[in-house]
């Protein structure tokens, strides 16, 4: 059974000014899957993510989320925004709000729950990411890894259909990263959230990803697509195998 594509990226060319970052790439994300985007740093992973969310407009090409073309509508894609959650690379928690206020913000806006119910819901969300007890902390008073987890809880606030995670485990200790990976899998399994994850962490790619796409800085396009466990040993492309087997590039 072929799953339905929930995000379609068609012939996307992304530029900053005259710098082409991504050149004519196309791929689909299927409903309920975990897709990992990887590649060397600076190859345009965050750029791709920003385009898929609609924060940056493509130079050429289209992005269709759940049947709606977000490139043609001029920023008026609120319907789509309700379906997505984003964890930014720098967490982007609101500095003047406590963690619980950060998470409660979208819930208050988009649900009819009573105040006391929202408090409990927020506690559950924080419990999910192992931050129980930190409800009243300001973002500036917690560590980077904890910010990542709180950002994840906020991205999950409305249980969106699609979750975009930009380097969710960067800067976390191995135990917390493993916990985040497990959480991602659990959420994907029990709620069925589609996930698009940008990450470098090899073990978490092999654990979490059902499919990967690998971007390349020189060709500015996708050089590998498929199951990471297969690509690891069988990819035709040397640099893909190097990535998975942690080899440095051979300098000539």
């Amino acid at each position, binding site marked *: 059974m072929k799953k339905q594509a929930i995000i379609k990226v068609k012939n996307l060319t992304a530029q900053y000014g005259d710098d082409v970052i991504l050149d004519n790439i196309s791929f689909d994300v299927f409903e309920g899957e975990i897709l990992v985007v990887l590649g060397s740093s600076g190859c345009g992973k965050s750029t791709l993510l920003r385009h898929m969310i609609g924060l940056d407009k493509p130079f050429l090409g289209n992005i269709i989320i759940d049947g709606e073309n977000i490139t043609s509508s001029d920023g008026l894609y609120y319907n789509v925004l309700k379906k997505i959650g984003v964890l930014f690379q720098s967490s982007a928690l609101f*500095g003047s709000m406590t963690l619980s206020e950060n998470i409660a913000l979208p819930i208050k806006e988009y649900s009819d729950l009573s105040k006391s119910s929202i408090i409990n819901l927020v506690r*559950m969300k924080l419990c999910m990411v192992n931050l*129980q007890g930190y409800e009243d902390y300001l973002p500036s008073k917690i560590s980077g890894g904890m910010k990542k987890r709180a950002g994840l809880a906020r991205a999950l606030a409305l249980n969106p259909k699609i979750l975009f995670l930009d380097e969710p485990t960067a800067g976390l200790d191995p135990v917390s990263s493993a916990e985040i990976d497990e959480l991602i899998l659990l959420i994907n399994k029990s*709620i069925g959230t589609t996930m698009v994850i940008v990450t470098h962490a090899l073990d978490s790619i092999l654990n979490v990803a059902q499919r990967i796409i690998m971007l390349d800085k020189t060709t500015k396009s996708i050089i590998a697509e498929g199951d990471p466990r297969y690509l690891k040993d069988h990819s035709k492309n040397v640099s893909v195998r190097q990535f998975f087997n942690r080899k440095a590039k051979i300098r000539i």
Partner: protein
Amino acid sequence: MTKSKQLSSRFYEISEKEKGQILILLKGKIDIKNSAYLLKELTPAIKGNALSSLVIDLGKVDYLDDFGALVLLETKRLVAEQKGKFSIVNVKDNIKGILSLVNFESNEYFMPLKKYTRPNILVHLGESAIQNTDNIRFFISFLGSVILSFIHVCLHPKDLRIDDTITYMKKTGVDALPIVALISFLLGLVMAFTSSLQLQQFGANIYVASLVSIAMVSELGPIMTAIVVAGRSGSAFAAEIGTMKISEEIDALFTMGFNTTIFLAVPRIIACIIVVPILTLFSDLFAISGGLMVGVFMLDLSTTSYINQTMETLTLFEVMWGLGKSFVFAALIAWIGCLRGFQTRGGADSVGNAATSAVVSSIFLIILFDSIFAVLRSYW
């Protein structure tokens, strides 16, 4: 058989088997869309009864997320309040996953959140006393650090970041010129006009020129310019340095072995003390030309006589006095702007506070020092 109440809808069926024993059958998908509705519907059904036990049957639920878990949790709390027994039956595996993820079984949710207790007034007083002493200490230590850095830069001119200094000179000086010129011109115009109303009565029109030039050059020129610069550049310094502070850029500089005062504060202060006196000169000029406009077009003075009167009134001392003041004001503005920047702690709002406080403090200091100058001069 006793009356058995039946309540139902698309998402639930409530039935009461025996007195006080309720069975709730939930159905379908329980998520953000219907959790608030369910809670509203279920609460009265549970609260109204003397309850001995409540069983929730999840057999017909195919999807439940943490919003659904919230419904279960709130129900559980209600039952616990009435000292009844609560149980969930027919839980599917994926739902079990969610429930364990949110730690549903834990009693923690029934404990009130550790409330942040407001410290009493003595604690408050003590805290703000400590904070103020810290502030004053930093105030003084920063002053010292700026002075030391200046001495260092004088001895090792190579350590001054010339490029930065020039950028700040442009930002503080050149970019501020249009607004300073406009404000001063209008100020000169207004002053000449107002004073002429009085002086005309005595046929002393020509003294408008003296009044405008003396008032502008020794008092209003330096103050107006300083206030404009405080609003434009003092706040910008505080915001720039404050943002660097909260994003750990200043810590990065420090660990690279840079003296942050020399790196960030000194170029700004030097730029300010160079360009603000020049701006003040421009301000004087434009104010005098504003006065000249009124003199020539409304008071029938000739351009030559107006300028002659101005030249006669203004002594070199007067001009230097004004410039000396603006030099001091410039140092104060740049110093307090940088100080507020370095004092920033916390998030985005603290950067805003730093900028505001930089402007307010510099205007206060400008007026304070102006008064000190006035007193000094009267004892000259």
